[in-house]
């Protein structure tokens, strides 16, 4: 298959999968799940087939349509998009596997709808990854918001509808209110929105306007969850765990930081921003988000909310690294997208597995759970270590490059932020690990009734097999990324070498 | 225009303002309807004095005749007196004051009444006066402009009448749910009309043929003097109203049944429209009557005759239908 055909197939496969899921859902759940898995495997294989070309320096492109002369829907695969597409499509397989266990284990309703919109979200994510210009990026960015809305509100009770309203409201507010004007502004001054090495804005805009435009992008791309536009992220925690995993690791937030990187690399141009003092604020905003979100995470009792704030802080690592405007740091930013994806999906899978097996949602309920669910908690531990940045996990690699970049830039604020936040990460993850492995299970009299009332199961083992399998795979990937990050590194350095 | 005429106009205009104020002031709606009939008669007189004879004839027939009949018909079905007063009077007065000020302000740059050098007298209008004998050759230039130069407007006008007819039939054609609150005695024609009163009946019956004859004259003499299809239709309708008053609704309905009226209302516009289409088929533009005969001027004559007939049929059918609709609404 030619690379161009592969690009189209990458968009059309999950779209066809959506239809297939809807159709199959009418007949049997097994068939539907088979369609989901087959589609995801085909998609990943298809995306991977593009990798050799891209590694060889090619940039396959497809032009779909022209809305107005100058404004096109077009796709182009460049290294950063390649990486994002691989992560999204690869983790979709694992996530589907996990979903099967989770959704069946919890007897969720509307499973067909769930899988269909999941596939639709993947269409949007791949569209974001391969977008060749700002307009196409914006198109699929919005499609991603809308296709994940039914997933967030999946439960359909009042609480989830309210939270989903925050999710949709904040993401649309930022994207329509800030991102869209930024896109139109860019097209207005540069005359184009095509992603180009070295940027398109240099020479068209200068002074404080650069900072302002960067601000419109940074906060307009609300999926990147830079404070104060992060609020949708904890709100979205009402969704079923596979959705949280999708949001946090596979598609949504990654699409956010990915879009910010795209804008910094290909719209502004790293050198242009580095030479513009008014763009420096981004670094501080990211540093603030890292620390503030970590501090909030420290105080969370609900496991999923804790993970949400952790994500919020981790995303800003990517932004922070990118905002250093140094090649090594950019490599760190790119690697961190991947490293965080593997680790965070593991953590969410673990949280979901705990919920499926025991209906436990709070941190203090996890005393001694490691003995009942060793696989799950082992995976959780690996994910947490990666969050902190302990070798041999993927998190170490990206932090390494990030720190190297900060050192190169002589930026002590960034270095201090990374060090401090590492301590904070350790501060909220280590107690959980200690609690899970070394504390004794609670058996206080009187709490049994309360526990029973809240539906907590006392006597349980591991979660259903597909879920455990999935989280084992992702935990393995987290470690594997430490040893085998060469392709990702190559992709990342290709981007930073592409910079003049 | 003599000084006497000017003063008479001023007198009439002042009287109209007073009448208008009285219309707004009175709480009795019958009185208001009657006063607005009188108002129309006065404006008809002014129009006549201002050299607009066709308009004067029409305004008298419509404003004083048809509107008054319609108002009375509607009032019989609704209420005789205004119950509530006004609302938002201050706001309304404020808007009124502003608009009046704008208009009076605008008047000071307007051409004076009768100014032969006013822009309206120098452009387009002289062409009509000059070319009518050559192209159309009818004495009444108003008819020439109405039926040919701006015949497309008149086509639209015919369809406006037709639309109103459809509307009234649509709204009032179906029997109301439940019994109406109005007693049949209150409708102005009633079931039997004035059949028990011999003198008006005999006089009226004598009059009706003459009215119809007059209508035919107005219809076909429109080329030469004020009048035309519209005025003729109104007069025919008036004679049917008179007949209904004398002989009762039922009789009038039997003389001209509903299906026939509906057919007339629909056929009239078709006659007009298809005259235009025929012109197209004969190689001219839509409504270009010149192609209807070998001699373009004759063609214009034929065309005007046919379309005026169409207008007359439409207006007759629609107005009588409307009248019956209102009357029948009360009788049920």
């Amino acid at each position, binding site marked *: 298959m030619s690379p161009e055909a592969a690009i189209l197939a990458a968009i059309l496969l999950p779209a066809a999968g959506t239809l297939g899921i809807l159709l199959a859902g009418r007949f049997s759940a097994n068939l539907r799940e088979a369609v989901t898995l087959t589609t995801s495997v085909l998609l990943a294989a298809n995306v991977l087939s593009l990798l050799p070309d891209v590694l060889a320096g090619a940039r396959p492109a497809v032009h779909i349509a022209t809305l107005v002369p100058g404004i096109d829907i077009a796709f182009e695969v460049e290294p950063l998009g390649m990486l994002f597409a691989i992560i999204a499509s690869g983790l979709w397989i694992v996530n589907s596997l996990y979903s099967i266990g989770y959704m069946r284990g919890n007897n969720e309703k509307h499973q067909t709808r769930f899988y269909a919109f999941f596939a639709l979200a993947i269409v949007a994510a791949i569209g974001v990854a391969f977008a060749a210009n700002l307009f196409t990026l914006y198109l699929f960015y919005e499609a991603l918001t809308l296709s994940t809305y039914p997933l967030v509100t999946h439960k359909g009770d009042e609480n989830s509808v309210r939270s989903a309203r925050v999710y949709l409201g904040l993401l649309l507010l930022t994207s329509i209110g800030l991102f869209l004007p930024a896109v139109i502004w860019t097209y207005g001054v540069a005359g184009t929105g095509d992603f180009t090495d070295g940027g398109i804005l240099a020479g068209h805009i200068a002074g404080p306007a650069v900072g302002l435009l960067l601000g419109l992008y940074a906060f307009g791309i609300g999926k990147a969850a830079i404070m104060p536009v992060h609020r949708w992220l904890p709100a979205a925690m009402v969704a079923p765990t596979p959705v949280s995993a999708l949001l946090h690791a596979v598609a949504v937030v990654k699409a956010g930081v990915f879009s910010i990187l795209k804008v910094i690399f290909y719209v502004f141009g790293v050198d242009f921003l580095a030479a513009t003092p008014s763009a420096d604020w981004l670094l501080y905003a990211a540093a603030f988000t890292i620390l503030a979100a970590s501090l909030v995470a420290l105080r969370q009792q609900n496991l999923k909310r804790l993970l949400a704030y952790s994500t919020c802080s981790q995303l800003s690592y990517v932004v922070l690294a990118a905002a250093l405007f140094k090649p090594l740091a950019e490599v760190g930013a790119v690697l961190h997208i991947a490293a965080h994806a593997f680790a965070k999906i593991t953590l969410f899978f673990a949280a979901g597995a705990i919920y499926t097996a025991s209906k436990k949602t709070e941190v203090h309920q996890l005393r001694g759970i490691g003995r009942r669910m060793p696989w799950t908690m082992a995976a959780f531990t690996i994910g947490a270590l990666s969050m902190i940045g302990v070798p041999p996990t993927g998190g170490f690699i990206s932090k390494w490059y990030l720190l190297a970049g900060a050192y190169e830039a002589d930026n002590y604020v960034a270095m201090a932020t990374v060090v401090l936040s590492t301590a904070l990460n350790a501060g909220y993850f280590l107690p959980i690990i200690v609690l899970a492995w070394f504390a004794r299970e609670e058996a206080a009299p009187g709490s049994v009734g309360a526990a029973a009332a809240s539906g907590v199961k006392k006597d349980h083992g591991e979660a259903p097999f597909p879920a455990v399998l999935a989280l084992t795979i992702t935990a393995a990937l987290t470690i594997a990324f430490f040893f085998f990050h060469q392709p990702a590194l190559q992709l990342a350095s290709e981007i930073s070498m592409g910079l003049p | *225009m003599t000084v006497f005429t000017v003063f008479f106009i001023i007198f009439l*205009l002042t009287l*109209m*303002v007073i009448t*208008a104020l009285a*219309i*707004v002031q009175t709480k009795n709606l019958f009185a*208001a309807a009657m006063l*607005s009939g009188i108002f129309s008669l006065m*404006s008809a007189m*002014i129009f006549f004095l*201002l*050299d*607009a004879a066709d*308009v004067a004839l*029409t305004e008298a027939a419509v*404003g004083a005749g*048809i509107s008054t009949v*319609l*108002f009375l018909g*509607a009032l019989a*079905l609704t*209420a005789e007196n*205004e*119950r*509530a*007063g006004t*609302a938002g009077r201050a706001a*309304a*007065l404020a*808007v009124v004051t502003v*608009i*009046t000020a704008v*208009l*009076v302000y605008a008047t000071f740059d*307007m051409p*004076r009444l009768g100014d*032969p050098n006013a822009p*309206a*007298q120098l452009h*387009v209008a002289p062409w*009509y006066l000059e070319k009518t*004998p050559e192209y159309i050759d009818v004495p*009444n*230039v*108003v008819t020439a*402009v*109405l039926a040919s130069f701006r015949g497309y*407007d008149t086509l639209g*006008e015919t369809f*406006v009448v037709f639309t*109103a007819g459809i*509307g*009234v039939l649509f*709204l*009032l054609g179906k029997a109301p749910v439940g019994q*109406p*609150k109005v007693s049949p005695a209150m409708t102005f024609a009633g079931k039997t009309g004035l059949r028990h009163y011999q003198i008006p009946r005999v006089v009226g019956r004598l009059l009706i043929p003459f009215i119809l004859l007059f209508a035919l004259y107005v219809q076909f003499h429109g080329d*030469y003097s004020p009048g035309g299809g*519209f005025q003729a239709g109104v007069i025919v309708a008036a004679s049917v109203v008179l007949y209904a008053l004398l002989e009762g609704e039922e009789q009038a309905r039997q003389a001209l049944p509903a299906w026939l009226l509906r057919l007339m209302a629909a056929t009239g516009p078709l006659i007009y429209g298809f005259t235009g289409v025929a012109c197209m088929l004969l190689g001219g533009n839509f409504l270009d009557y010149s192609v209807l005969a070998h001699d373009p001027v004759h063609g214009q004559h034929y065309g005007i005759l046919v379309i005026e007939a169409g207008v007359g049929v439409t207006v007759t059918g629609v107005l009588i239908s409307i009248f019956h609709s209102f009357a029948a609404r009360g009788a049920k």
Partner: protein
Amino acid sequence: MEILELYNYWVFAILLMIGFYAVTAKLNLVKKLIGLSLFQSAVFLLYISMGPVEGGTAPIFHADVTGRVFSNPLPSVLILTAIVVGISTLALGLAIIVRIKEAYDSVEENEIRELDRQ
């Protein structure tokens, strides 16, 4: 004398506004329609006042047309159409009022609004 030659237009303005006032401020629907037809009639006066020419006659040619001045036929034509439009609107408006009366047993705007609120 010259001022009097604008008198027509002033009366037009005043009649227009009397009608307008009745339409907007009166609550009785029939009265509103009466006001509306006053409002339209005023416009007839505006147009017809543009027609006449000093020393002219109505634009109808008789035997001896040479050397005579005729008034403008166009305003008459336009107003003939406008009169027809006016009576058509009136007929439709009255039909609606009759239906309103049947549906609400009232033709007063404030009472109807009250009934709708229930």
